[in-house]
């Protein structure tokens, strides 16, 4: 693994971390509203998978800020979206759960658990049909593996031999229900094994995520078949801002805090000679500045105009036709 990739990874993971901590603060101040789901603790999965996967279509759940930033979307427009401003990636109409940008092959931001899995299968079908070589990545939580959409998608991706990478971010909780109280098969990757190659990895370890996704990408794009990764990870924050999160023990929290993915990458990067203290300091300062700039940008951005209520419902042609 090259030095530049690790440096990039550190920058993106730190950006994601600081961005989300600040988002939490801005929520408490009342600048952000609605549901805010933070991915603090899951950065290695989001950044590792994005860097390894390249530019292929990406379908994600509602805990997607870091995915969006890792894809290259600007912290300014993402923060502005959280603030509900006109300059946000979705013009202030979508909010935290609905970040979209086809320029980055980024298709949400979906707030219905498991609903985007069939989209990924369909997108892979279309790309294959149109002769593209790149696969499709779909990320979902442990909760989604108990929904009907999940099995239907695994079956069809396999049956139709489509290049889909199913990335299960198992953070152990579907809001307040622990995975073993919701799933009969406790090792989730086994719920895919009959359909496709499936592995379980440590999602707190950037290197492991990057390697596994690189390998998976190669497989789906050369074989033209789906692949499944279960990444064990953890959200340090509760499910959303309004969840007290008191269903998790302090001991459990400590175990995972000790595995903090950002700290791990820092330590391991230095050990392997891929990162330096000086570089880290530089990045930390840069990230603080970028996030501050994003907040200022969002604060100063205008609200969408009233007429925006009725825009973007149909394409321009249809808007003319449909009164």
């Amino acid at each position, binding site marked *: 693994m090259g030095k530049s990739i690790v440096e990039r990874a550190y920058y993106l993971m730190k950006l994601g971390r600081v961005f989300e901590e600040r988002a939490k603060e801005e929520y408490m101040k009342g600048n952000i509203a609605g549901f805010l789901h933070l991915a603090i603790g899951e950065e290695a999965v989001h950044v590792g998978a994005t860097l390894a996967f390249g530019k292929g279509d990406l379908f994600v759940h509602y805990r997607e800020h870091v995915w969006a930033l890792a894809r290259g979307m600007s912290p300014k427009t993402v923060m502005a979206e959280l603030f509900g401003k006109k300059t946000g990636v979705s013009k202030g109409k*979508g909010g935290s759960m609905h970040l979209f940008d086809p320029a980055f092959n980024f298709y949400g931001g979906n707030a219905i658990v498991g609903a985007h899995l069939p989209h990924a299968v369909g997108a892979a079908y279309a790309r294959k049909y149109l002769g593209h070589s790149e696969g499709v990545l779909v990320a979902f939580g442990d909760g989604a593996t108990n929904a009907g959409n999940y099995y239907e998608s695994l079956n069809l991706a396999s049956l139709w031999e489509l290049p889909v990478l199913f990335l299960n971010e198992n953070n152990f909780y579907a809001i307040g229900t622990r995975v073993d109280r*919701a799933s009969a098969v406790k090792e989730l990757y086994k719920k895919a094994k009959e359909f496709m190659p499936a592995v379980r990895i440590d999602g707190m370890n950037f290197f492991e995520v990057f390697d596994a996704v690189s390998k998976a990408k190669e497989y789906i794009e050369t074989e033209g078949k789906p692949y499944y990764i279960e990444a064990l990870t953890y959200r340090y924050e509760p499910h959303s801002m309004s969840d007290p999160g008191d269903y998790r023990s302090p001991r459990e929290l400590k175990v995972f805090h000790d595995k903090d993915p950002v700290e791990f990458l820092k330590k391991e990067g230095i050990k392997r000679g891929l990162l330096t203290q000086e570089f880290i300091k530089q990045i930390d300062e840069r990230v603080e500045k970028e996030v501050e700039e994003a907040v200022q940008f969002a604060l100063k951005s205008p609200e969408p105009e009233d007429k925006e209520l009725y825009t973007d419902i149909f394409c321009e042609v249809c808007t003319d036709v449909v009164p």
Partner: protein
Amino acid sequence: MLYREALNKALDEMMEKDETVVILGEDVGFYGGNYRVTEGLYAKYGEKRAIDTPIAENSIVGNAIGMAIGGLRPVAEIMTVNFILIAMDQIVNQMAKLRYMSGGKVELPMVVRTPQGVSKQLAAQHSQSLERFFTSTPGLITMVASDATAAYYGLKYAIELDDPVIFLEHELLYPMKMEIQERKDFDPFKADVVKEGKDITVVSYLKMLHDTLQAVSVIEKELGVSVEVINLHSLNPLDMETISKSVKKTGRFVIVTEEPKTGSFAGEIVSKVTEELFYQLDAPPLRICGEDVPTPYNRKLELLSIPTPDKIAKQIIYWGRENGI
């Protein structure tokens, strides 16, 4: 007492009274419900009666149907109405039709509880009012609980019914402080005249009822009329008797709902009023509804997309002046 506590009290009393009553849904047990409606029931009745399910709405409703067939009285909670769409096959093809298809031999004493409506900046996939889907499905009873009294007595009534009930709540009502009025004779199929008047009949329910009541005094002052307000507890069956009696008196009908206007339940109720009371009407019926757009995240746009007390007052005043008041 909070609105959500009235629901909790109803569930608790029914579970206490009848051990075939069980609740099921996402986080309803150990966690106490995402809106804390089922708080304490897991501790009191155990995991066999406060059943945590995975995120699998199709199964939640489908399993509840099976439980009802098997001799229980299940109360399924769908976290929000937005997720009920995943269970629509079970609701429309199964729950609503089993009694009829079986020539009346299969009975489904069950309730599906769910909150709907626009809360605060939850965006398009979490801010919907979908009563139209239920009220237009033959075989379903659709109840709405607009206050603590309707929540408490209505839910108990629904659980005791031997037919499937969709029981709609509203996310913004949960933390509202209100009291349960003593109403031993509460009948959800009779609407309440919550305010008497003689010139305009306004029908509403859930959050919009509260917004309507806030607008009433301004409307009365501005138009120099008195407004009658009717609170529905059930959308289907609909208590046309109470509505009809009122419209015969006032000659003017307004319905206020939060759902988008096109194809709305509001449209259905206007049709009924027009069909039954055409010659009594002294003004065209008025629908005050949400806009025909997915709900936007931005707060300003969000408030533009639904009726508010201010908009309700303005629209009724304008309409009144336009129609000879």
